[in-house]
């Protein structure tokens, strides 16, 4: 019988393999509400070849593998449901190349968003990437794999839409190049188009079809100045129209819609944060005027207005990533938060807010409703976010129930649950077109014949 531990040590060295209780405990959990499942091993490879060898070993020995980045999806996606090997990708932390003309960067599988931001600021200040609000330790690959969103999502789509190429280790151990660089080793300017887009076999699959060891990511112009405008309305039903008007201007960076009961200044209003960028004060002044004019009707009717944001209140609104997001976890003085963040069409916003308030009242919960506009308003991410005290099992249970109901509501409304928990994946697959589901099953079976990749996820019954 193979000594798995010894084999892993042979691949990556003793310092980077653990079968100790402490690592198994920590890597078997995430900060959300998913019950823990501990792995048998935690490993930290440094190269694609080491990942390849680990995958081959796992395939031979039929051991589950779960690739892990920052582990901040909060929906249990990197909790190893069937034990096995958790691969902490964060030692693969090299930023390999920035192509300024084609505006892309190639990163290894464990590069964090924080380090990428810092690197670009220092070496390529005219370029930026779409950084999410998850903490800076979130990895570029992890965020892309779950179709994350970031500061440039309103303009350019999901962060996964910005992928420009992949290097993947298949579950059967081959290393594959996906995108333009599948024929040219240098150019990572497209993840698929104009050919069959094979990146779709890996993005969104939560590691069940392969491990992304390198990723190309589109970069975008980084303007010198960023500023924020805040538009308030107390009429929920006006929000879709406001977003349409704002996105029509094509003048904005991020648009985030917030509704929360606390602190008191938020009560009763919807706060729409509009980020604008420019290379000069003139450019920003112009954009401000266009945006003001776009919402002038609402301003005149007094149904909405722009709040003058004092200078000292701007930095937290402009911060990337926003540290205020994690502070939500301590509202109950308990270090916990989880959210269901379905992707929905704009016009459903009022229904989703209404549902959230119903859940809050039913289960007596602390909440925030954050929504981010995606791709010019083609859809938005609506977050049923709840914060809990980790030492209060009853509160955690009430939130689980609330999130389950939120998920059921989303499915009924035709929304798409984002980074769904396993339970939510099952709800999705149950409602899915059977032929569509068949394709998913076929792809999984083809790529992962031994079912070793993050088992439990996207497993159609």
């Amino acid at each position: 019988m193979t000594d798995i531990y010894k084999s892993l040590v042979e691949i990556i060295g003793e310092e980077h393999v653990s079968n100790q209780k402490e690592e198994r405990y920590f890597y078997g959990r995430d900060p959300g509400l998913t019950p823990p499942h501990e792995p048998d091993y935690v490993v930290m490879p440094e190269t694609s070849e080491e990942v390849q060898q680990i995958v081959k070993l796992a395939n031979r020995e039929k051991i589950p593998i779960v690739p892990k980045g920052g582990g901040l999806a909060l929906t249990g996606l990197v909790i190893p449901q069937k034990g096995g090997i958790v691969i902490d990708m964060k030692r693969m932390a090299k930023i390999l190349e920035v192509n300024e003309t084609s505006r892309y960067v190639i990163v290894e599988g464990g590069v964090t968003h924080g380090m990428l931001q810092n690197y670009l600021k220092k070496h390529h200040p005219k370029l930026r990437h779409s950084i999410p609000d998850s903490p800076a330790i979130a990895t570029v690959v992890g965020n892309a794999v779950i179709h994350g969103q970031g500061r440039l999502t309103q303009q350019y789509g999901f962060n996964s839409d910005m992928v420009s190429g992949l290097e993947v280790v298949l579950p059967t151990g081959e290393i594959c190049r996906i995108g333009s660089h599948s024929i040219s080793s240098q150019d990572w300017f497209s993840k698929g188009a104009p050919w069959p887009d094979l990146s779709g076999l890996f993005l969104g699959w939560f590691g069940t079809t392969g491990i992304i060891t390198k990723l190309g990511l589109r970069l975008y112009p980084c303007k010198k100045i960023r500023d924020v405008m805040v538009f308030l309305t107390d009429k929920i039903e006006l929000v879709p129209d406001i977003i349409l008007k704002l996105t029509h201007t094509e003048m904005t960076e991020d648009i985030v819609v917030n509704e929360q009961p606390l602190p008191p200044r938020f009560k009763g209003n919807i706060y729409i944060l509009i980020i604008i960028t420019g290379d000069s004060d003139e450019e920003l002044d112009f954009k401000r005027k266009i945006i003001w004019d776009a919402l002038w009707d609402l301003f005149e009717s007094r149904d909405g207005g722009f709040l003058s944001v004092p200078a000292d209140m701007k930095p937290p609104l402009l911060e990337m990533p926003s540290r205020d997001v994690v502070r939500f976890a301590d509202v109950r003085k308990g270090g916990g938060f989880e959210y269901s963040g379905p992707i929905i069409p704009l016009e459903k916003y009022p229904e989703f807010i209404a549902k959230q308030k119903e859940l809050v009242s039913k289960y007596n919960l602390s909440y925030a409703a954050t929504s981010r506009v995606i791709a010019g308003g083609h859809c938005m991410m609506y977050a049923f976010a709840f914060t809990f005290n980790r030492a209060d099992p009853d509160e955690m249970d009430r939130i689980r129930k609330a999130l389950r109901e939120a998920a059921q509501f989303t499915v009924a409304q035709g929304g798409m649950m984002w980074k769904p928990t396993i339970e939510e994946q099952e709800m999705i697959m149950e409602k899915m077109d059977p032929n569509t589901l068949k394709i998913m099953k076929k792809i999984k079976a083809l790529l992962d014949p031994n079912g070793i990749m993050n088992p439990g996820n996207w497993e159609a019954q």
Partner: protein
Amino acid sequence: MTDYTKQIHRCFRCGYCKFPSDYSDFNCPSYARFRFDTYSTSGRLWLIYAWLKGEIEWSEHLAEILYSCTACKNCVEQCPMKFSSDIVDWIVAARSDMMEKEKGRIPPAVTSFLEDVYRLGNPLKERGKRDAWADGIKRYQPGDEYLFYVGCLGSYDEYGQRMARSVARLLGEAGISFGILGNEENCCGNEVYLLGENELFGMLVEKNVQKFKELGVKKIVTLSPHAYNAIKNNYPPVSNAYFEVYHYTQLLRGLLRENKIKPSQYKAKVTYHDPCFLGRYNQIYDEPREILQSIPGIELVEMERSRENSFCCGGGSGNFVTDLLGGSKESPSRIRVREAYETGANILAVACPSCMTMLQDAVKVEELEDKLAVKDISQIAAESL
């Protein structure tokens, strides 16, 4: 600080504790060394909570994780939560708790450190006279303005002794009235406190304060930021005695401003490493820099991670002896020395004998001895006279 057992579950494991403000690299020394999430602050806090709940049992590995924290306070600086200022205190409180409940099962190197302090009065296994370095240096007499508190590294470590001599020389040059305790000096207890050995710490405080009071000491100037921190911040809650404590860089800055020390040309490109116990612990960032900048000929260049983002040398919490973070090119002191080298500086300036010893060893291992000299600020100032 509130009871850590009621607070420690509040960690969200968001991971900001791993970084400096600009996310340029990993800034938690134990995480940089080992890279398992368990070795970062969030890992530690979650494991302590698990131990409290009985979900994990004490083990050597848990102990190693716990004691590999150098208490550098990068996590305190970076944590976005309201309880951030308490984080290291929680870890220290947990160490203290575990020491009591899991007697005898702390890492051998830590046990040895504490036993040596108890039996020998220093953690360096030195049995010789504490003041063997101090030929010609006056012993403190009642009426002297300052007690120059030298500390264990200053007394016994080769590099520390050189630092102690240059500080003494500078104070003498400036006509400052001071004296040392010599053989009667005891360990300040800063690391003992951080390692969680409260009883031993209490004994050291009592002994030291009694000695200070006997001699009518009012003002203390320390060689080491560790001693500065202990006497200033950790002694009063235990001893109720108050002394005016300074780190030598605070005095030295004043002496330069008042022209009591007149440095001459000293051509060098210098980068300064902020020690944790001066910087993040006590917000002393400017004085050392001002000293360097007032020496003609010195070009001061900053490392990317400086001031409140300084990357710990890895020596804190007794690690300058226990060396739980050693043995790898990713040891914090080696990372730091490489960072210093990248600035183009030919001198890496320190203000702490613990940093000195850690970084000196790292320079050797990194084979940079010919290219980068590690010098204490007092040595640079003394050499410029």
